[in-house]
């Protein structure tokens, strides 16, 4: 199946010379949830802005549903709904007319039944006649989502949908996203909450300094890059790891109170039972055992750190 969004060699250099995107290639498939992760200033918002028509690319090509975003901008933009990062909303306007206005902007005929459906889905229906300034922050954000959905887009961009919102609202936003995904909408979200990507995304893309470092299925990524650590708490601290254990890669934890062993869960043989029997042979008694899985956050930090290291090497 052809990707719903195809990005080829996308480049963006701002007037001040800052290169925000350095040749990004990415295919986004219909119906998926793609999370773009990256530190501040990585180029996530620039990427979205170009696809949605807020910024102009200085190189490369993007098609949305097969339509070039520059040449066939009308057809391309009709497919897209955008919820920007900033809370940008006309506060003096009422909820329902404002959402209706958005639909009109995208050239769709008035459809009150559809607007009602969206407002109900986002639990905004009983606020429909309120002025937007009377709503809470979370409600305002919902109005922005309703506006983005008002023209029945097939793709929804959510730029940092949960930045600066409380835990409860974040959970609500996730529910909204799952609902949308179920209805077949392709969702691209940027975030720096790793937890969010882990919970929501089918695939994760990591952007740093204008480059797409990787795009991978969330599960695969967790499996292939995820490591597990076994922490063995000792009854009495030791000052050195017995040679048999050291050979297997066991290291001494802080103050010699624990032994730490990193292993690959995907491997055929983890070596845990061997370590435990070696410990008994070496006369070490244990208090407790725990395991810790590396999160997407660790993976992400590693990736970005590695990129920095490479650049420093190149510079040297």
């Amino acid at each position, binding site marked *: 199946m052809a990707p719903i969004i195809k990005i080829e060699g996308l480049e963006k250099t701002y007037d001040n010379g800052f290169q925000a995107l350095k040749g990004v290639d990415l295919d986004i498939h219909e119906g998926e949830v793609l999370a773009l992760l990256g530190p501040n200033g990585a180029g996530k918002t620039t990427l979205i802005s170009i696809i949605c028509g807020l910024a102009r690319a200085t190189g490369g090509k993007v098609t949305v549903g097969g339509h070039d975003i520059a040449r066939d901008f009308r057809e391309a933009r009709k497919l897209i709904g955008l919820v920007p990062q900033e809370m940008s909303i006309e506060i003096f306007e009422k909820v329902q007319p404002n959402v209706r206005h958005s639909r009109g*902007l995208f050239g769709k005929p008035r459809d009150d039944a559809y607007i009602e459906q969206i407002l109900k889905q986002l639990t905004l229906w009983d606020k429909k006649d309120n002025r937007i300034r009377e709503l809470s922050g979370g409600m305002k954000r919902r109005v922005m989502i309703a506006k983005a959905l008002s023209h029945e887009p097939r793709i929804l961009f959510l730029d940092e949908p949960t930045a600066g919102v409380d835990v409860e609202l974040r959970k609500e936003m996730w529910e909204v996203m799952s609902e949308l995904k179920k209805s077949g909408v392709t969702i691209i979200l940027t975030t720096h909450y790793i937890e969010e990507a882990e919970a929501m995304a089918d695939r994760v893309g990591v952007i740093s300094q204008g480059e797409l470092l990787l795009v991978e299925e969330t599960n695969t990524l967790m499996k292939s890059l995820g490591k597990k650590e076994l922490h063995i708490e000792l009854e009495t601290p030791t000052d050195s790891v017995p040679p048999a254990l050291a050979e297997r890669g066991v290291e001494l934890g802080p103050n010699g109170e624990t032994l730490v062993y990193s292993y690959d869960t995907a491997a055929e043989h983890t070596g845990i039972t061997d370590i435990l029997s070696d410990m008994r042979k070496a006369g070490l008694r244990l208090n407790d055992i725990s395991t810790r899985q590396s999160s997407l956050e660790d993976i992400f930090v590693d990736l970005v750190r590695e990129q920095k290291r490479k650049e420093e090497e190149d510079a040297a």
Partner: protein
Amino acid sequence: MNWRAIAAIYRFEMARTFRSIGQSVISPVVSTSLYFVVFGTAIGSRIQTVEGIEYGAFIVPGLMMLQMLMQSVSNAALGIYFPKFVGTIYETLSAPISVPEIVAGYVGAAATKALMIGLIILGTASFFVDLQIAHPLAMLAFMILTCVTFSLFGFIIGIWADNFEQVNLIPMLVITPLVFLGGAFYSISMLPEAWQTVALFNPVVYLVSGFRWSFFAMSDVPVGISLVAIAVVLVACLAVINLIFRTGWKLRT
């Protein structure tokens, strides 16, 4: 053509106008009444007639022109500056709308409001003076042309402006003096000869003169020249707007 988008922008902007309909209408009515008291009564008692027209009636086209120019420029400037300021412009820029459509929506709404206020002033004036309009259709055409042209100009100001002071600066610092010096309250034939020549460089002279012709069938400059002058300003504004959107200046990075 995305007609629905034009209609959506137009309705949205008009809704903004009607939300503050009180101040939109009261302020021009009050200021017009003040002008009548000051110019019409105080000065009019000494001037009486200009070129055979009662002074109170003579200043009506100028007064309307003053308010319509101010309103056109500031409505259109604010109309586009405000979404830029609060960030809601993102929606218009990401919608499937072309430049002429965006301009038609915003400028159409700003011009409509200015036109409404022009008519309200005409109504207010009719309480103070006896008015006979020689060419009503020409008058209306002049009003529409003026409102559209200066709304386009205001639209440019709104895109250019980086803060609210700048939005107000041009109407205050440019439009008001040009109108006052452009023969809104006198015939430029009353000026010393040297100043008459200077006045001819003021585009508002042509607007006021042509507009006054539609009322009294007399004018400082031939009405054809007035039309050409408006057309020149109109085309210049359209050219600048086209350039702004082609380059994305101040709108798209």
